[in-house]
């Protein structure tokens, strides 16, 4: 019988390989221990800039377009959780056009009996950046308490589903952009732009005008990585329809992007050297 190497047929093997990669990663990083911890810590520091910005602005105004300080902090806190997962695992998909396509690293990946996308992700991961999740969770707890948010039984499972959906959106968008590299054969500089746009998702959508809100909801759906799901988790129900769409949008975004990826892999011909 032909052996199948797809992710779904070999889950335990894929998990085991993840831990092998992780062990190697930790070994290499431990050679520069201080740098490793400072890197993870300074990532939090970069995020703190936005936090300080918001805290200072809210000393001057009580609310922004009907969103109080604590609500805006809560949205930001939620945003940090999928953002940390993205930073830890999908950020380096931007290496694909240059490193994997142009320089032909993909050759090595493709001859191995393991899903190519999975290999690229675990080869380029920075799992220490997951610490950002704790900052996000702490911020949600702090702001949730400040606005006297009562925990309901479905909050935690819902939060998990929302984070999963938001993560799939990140994975989808970046997989799609990385896949374009198979056609452009090199970096076209879209990644930083999309990254900057993704940061729009951490503020209330009511801040933006119609066209921008439309883009952030239906084209590059970054409204679903922060604002929409966060509103539901803080029990504001004006956007419940959008919020509940988060996992659906995530699955669709990732499924579409993955198809583009597969088409890209088919197109890939190596560097010929």
């Amino acid at each position, binding site marked *: 019988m032909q052996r199948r190497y797809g992710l779904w047929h070999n889950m335990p093997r894929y998990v085991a390989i993840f831990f092998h990669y992780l062990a190697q990663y930790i070994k290499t990083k431990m050679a520069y221990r201080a740098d490793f911890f400072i890197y993870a*810590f300074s990532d939090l520091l970069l995020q703190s800039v936005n936090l300080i910005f918001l805290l200072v602005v809210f000393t001057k105004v009580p609310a922004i377009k009907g969103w109080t300080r604590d609500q805006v902090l809560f949205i930001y806190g939620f945003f940090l959780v999928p953002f940390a997962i993205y930073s830890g695992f999908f950020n380096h998909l931007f290496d694909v056009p240059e490193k994997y396509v142009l320089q032909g690293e993909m050759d090595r990946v493709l001859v191995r009996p393991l899903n190519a996308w999975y290999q690229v992700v675990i080869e380029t991961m920075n799992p220490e950046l997951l610490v950002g999740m704790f900052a996000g969770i702490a911020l949600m707890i702090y702001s949730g308490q400040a606005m006297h948010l009562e925990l309901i039984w479905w909050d935690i499972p819902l939060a998990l589903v929302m984070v999963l959906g938001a993560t799939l959106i990140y994975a989808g968008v970046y997989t799609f952009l990385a896949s374009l590299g198979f056609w452009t054969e090199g970096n076209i*500089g879209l990644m930083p732009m999309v990254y900057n746009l993704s940061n729009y998702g951490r503020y209330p959508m009511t801040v933006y005008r119609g066209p921008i809100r439309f883009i952030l909801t239906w084209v590059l759906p970054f409204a679903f990585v922060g604002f929409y799901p966060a509103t539901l988790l803080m029990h504001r129900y004006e956007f419940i329809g959008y919020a509940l769409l988060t996992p659906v949008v995530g699955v669709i975004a990732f499924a579409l992007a993955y198809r583009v990826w597969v088409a890209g892999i088919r197109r890939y011909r190596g560097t010929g050297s």
Partner: protein
Amino acid sequence: MTMAAISLLPGGMALSAEHRWSPPSHLGNRIMLYIELIRMEFVNNLAYRSSYLTGIFNYSIQIGAYFFLWDAIYSGRRILGGLNKEEMITYVIVAWVVRSFYFSNLDRRVAVEIREGKIALELIRPYNYQMVKFARAFGEALFRMLFFALPAGIFFYLIRPFGLPAGWPNGLIFLVTIAGSFVINAQISMIAGFLAFFTQSTSGIYRAKRVVMDLFSGLLLPISFYPDWARDIIKLFPFQVVSYMPNLIYLGKITGAAALKVVILQLFWVAVLGVIGFFFWRFAVKHVVIQGG
């Protein structure tokens, strides 16, 4: 960022510097050397014109976020931190456009050279290391001014007209102060590069520097927004003369003698940072020697 891609162009530059070098007995030769370096860096950057184009769109998205935020923050309010809404939008756009001019990755360049021991080669060359770095950074800054900051400014003006400088004296002093912004930012970057040598971690230092500059230079929000105690602390550092004060001169919030005082304050910080940079350099060089680099 696209800028990161345009970081190191080592070989060619050093060669050309050597090629042009003649005995440093004469001050004119020295100056010619630095002018040549500025020119070379400018020309080198011409090769990356197209990446600056995407850089402009990139900046638009970033500035856009702040534009929408401030627009929302001001809804129903007239004045915050001494600025009205139009002034704030002008402030944000001018701050970012000027940043696109003075921004440099000197910290990375210096730290890499020190860590990889390339600095040893620099030491045997008959020129002032820091001055050479500043000259090259200035060449790049001039390039950015022409191919990035100016087109970006015009582009933003076409999308969303913002305020022009408050009168020609302020406009002129503003231009002088942004030259100062470049020098002070370059000096701070240089010192951060030296610091990276002592701390084992380079990425931590770059990021810490970036956080400090973003928050305390006034790039993200005017210093007048901070609580009094924070302002008192920020005053003790050179950061606010990089962005905040030039922007206020542009807006006409600081005029006349007060504006000239900003220029003098910048000169003061250039001198102080120059001394600090000198000692850091000496210290770093000693460490290289000890390590046998």
